[in-house]
């Protein structure tokens, strides 16, 4: 367990709404981030991720709770005294200053000696690949270049923590993917903790050491990308990340096997294991991701876990086929199968029926509705 660099305890923030009433942006959040970690705050708009970022950087005053940075309580320390720097979504480059003066700003306000200041500015610009553009003004730069200047400006002061507020959202797809890789490399090179905010789950899954999924001011789950994807802690995370088929039902045990019976009569077979112990009563939700299905033939009885569906649509998406349909009870199901299963797919398209096989051991069970601690 790496040592933590920043810790929030019980962080709360409520905002008044212009039309009256209030909204809870942060609901007693506890968070611990390790040194050199690349943590992503992920969630839909309004979930509180930007507020959380602003609380850490100091632009937002918490109503309750505390923040520790490297062991020091910074809850009441104003933004300009926190060794935390931010890369803003709109870059916020000073339009009346050249690239050189923008990047060197943090050093200029702390009166660093000129030689050292120039050296560090040069190094930061080189690190983001913009060496030689010192004299340009922000409006003479492209979007990607502006973004790098914002990055250079934020790292030149060697902050303990770098906050990035959806920095790639304004870039086009190719540039964004290239920048994702560059950011990852930069983080490794600098050895600084990055806290990254995004609403793009693909981005989060690609870049992060850990992802914190937020919703309504609460951390729903915080775990590695793999775990968040394979083992979502509640239905929100399950639906927010990736596509999923959710089946809510009551668990039944027979012959040492576990099954879930839904209201519509569908039966899902699952396997109990040390980390999947649904209670005997109450309802449990089973999750099957579309790619966990494979097509079975009509005479195929090898697999005992299968689902028959009526097919509404088959969609060709290049390397895969998407099969959209519903069960006899009317519940919608989507499956993704590789295009190589071309024969079975033809059969499905003719008969408008499909048998979807799955592995019971890979069925993920969600017992809780609330956020995972």
């Amino acid at each position, binding site marked *: 367990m790496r040592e933590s660099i920043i810790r929030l305890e019980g962080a709360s923030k409520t905002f008044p709404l212009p039309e009256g009433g209030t909204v809870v942006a942060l609901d007693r959040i506890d968070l611990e981030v390790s040194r050199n970690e690349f943590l992503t705050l992920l969630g839909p708009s309004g979930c509180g991720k930007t507020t959380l970022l602003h609380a850490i950087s100091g*632009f937002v005053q918490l109503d309750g709770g505390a923040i520790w940075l490297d062991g020091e309580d910074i809850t009441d320390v104003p933004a300009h005294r926190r060794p935390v720097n931010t890369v*803003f979504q709109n870059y*916020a480059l000073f339009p009346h200053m050249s690239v050189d003066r923008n990047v060197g*700003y943090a050093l200029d*306000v702390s009166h660093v000696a000129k030689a050292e200041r120039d050296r560090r500015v040069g190094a930061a610009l080189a690190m983001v690949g913009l060496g030689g553009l010192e004299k340009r003004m922000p409006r003479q730069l492209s979007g990607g270049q502006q973004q790098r200047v914002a990055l250079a400006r934020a790292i030149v002061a060697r902050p303990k923590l770098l906050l990035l507020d959806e920095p790639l959202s304004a870039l086009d797809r190719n540039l964004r993917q290239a920048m994702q890789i560059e950011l990852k490399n930069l983080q490794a090179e600098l050895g600084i903790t990055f806290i990254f905010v995004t609403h793009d789950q693909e981005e989060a899954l690609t870049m992060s050491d850990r992802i914190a999924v937020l919703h309504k001011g609460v951390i729903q789950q915080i775990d590695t990308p793999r775990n968040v994807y394979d083992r979502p802690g509640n239905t929100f995370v399950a639906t927010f990340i990736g596509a999923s088929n959710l089946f809510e039902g009551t668990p039944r045990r027979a012959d040492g096997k576990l099954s879930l019976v839904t209201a519509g009569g569908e039966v899902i077979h699952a396997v109990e294991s040390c980390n999947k112990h649904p209670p005997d009563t109450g309802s449990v939700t089973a999750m099957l991701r579309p790619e966990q299905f494979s097509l079975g033939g009509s005479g195929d009885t090898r697999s005992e876990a299968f689902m028959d569906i009526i097919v509404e649509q088959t969609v060709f998406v290049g390397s895969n086929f998407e099969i959209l349909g519903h069960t006899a009870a009317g519940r919608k199901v989507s499956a993704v199968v590789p295009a190589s299963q071309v024969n079975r797919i033809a059969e499905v398209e003719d008969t408008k029926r499909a048998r979807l096989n799955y592995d019971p051991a890979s069925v993920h069970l969600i017992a809780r509705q609330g956020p995972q601690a």
Partner: protein
Amino acid sequence: MSALTRTQRLSAQLGILIGPASLFLAVFFICPLAIMAIYSVLAPGTYGGVVWDFYPHNFGRILGFADPDFEIYDPVYFSIFLRSLKIALITVLLTLLVCYPAAFQVSRLPERWKAFGLFLITLPFFASLIVRLFIWVLILKKTGFINVALMDMGIIAAPLELIYTDGAIILGMVYIFIPFMFLPVYASVEKLDWSLVRASQDLGANGIQTFFRIILPLTLPGIVGGSIIVFIPALGNFIVPAVLGGAKVLMLGNLIEQQFLSARNWPFGSALAMLVMASVLLLLYLYIRFEARRGDEAPAIR
């Protein structure tokens, strides 16, 4: 109408629209100014007319190169010019300092309060100038509000000399020019991108540094615009010194007025007016250069 071609028809339309105003301004604006310029280098007649001789000594009386046989150079004129300059500049500065924080606050208010605040600022602009000055006479004079209140409360024994001072003039001018300064400054302040202020703080700058490095430079256009709009009428003003300065404080405006209505030396008065014009034109020229240099940096590359 179809006898005329389309071009002829359009030209006629343009002529009708622009003609009258252009003619009017040419006759009643440009001509008078030109004549005044000519008068400034003519000699004054004995009983108030003009003598059509080239006479540079009007300017000489002011600036110092008088004909020693005829006029004695009186430095009082130039000192009046300097004093007017000084008062105008102090007025600009004070008006700016008074308006800037208020403009800031108003720009941070919710929408409806903002509109109301702007309305409150512009409303006095529509009240007559003379009324707004009259108010201060009532407040500052020997038997005015302040003196009466202070004496009744026993704080002073004899009335204070508040009116008919440089201070009273500056106070009056600031009061009158607040709407002129507030609106341009407000326009600039309102456009300020607050994320830049946050970025500055994020990078370690405290309030003062953020103000001088970010806020001030970015609101400079409004400041400069407002300053010019205040300076121009402040320099040549004669109403405020007449009302609040009495006979004691003489500014350029009063001097000019005297030349035209009592001393009847129109050429000299014209020369003084030319001095005011020259100052204003110089200021505008500097402003245009300032604007050009700002926008002169190489255009955006996309």
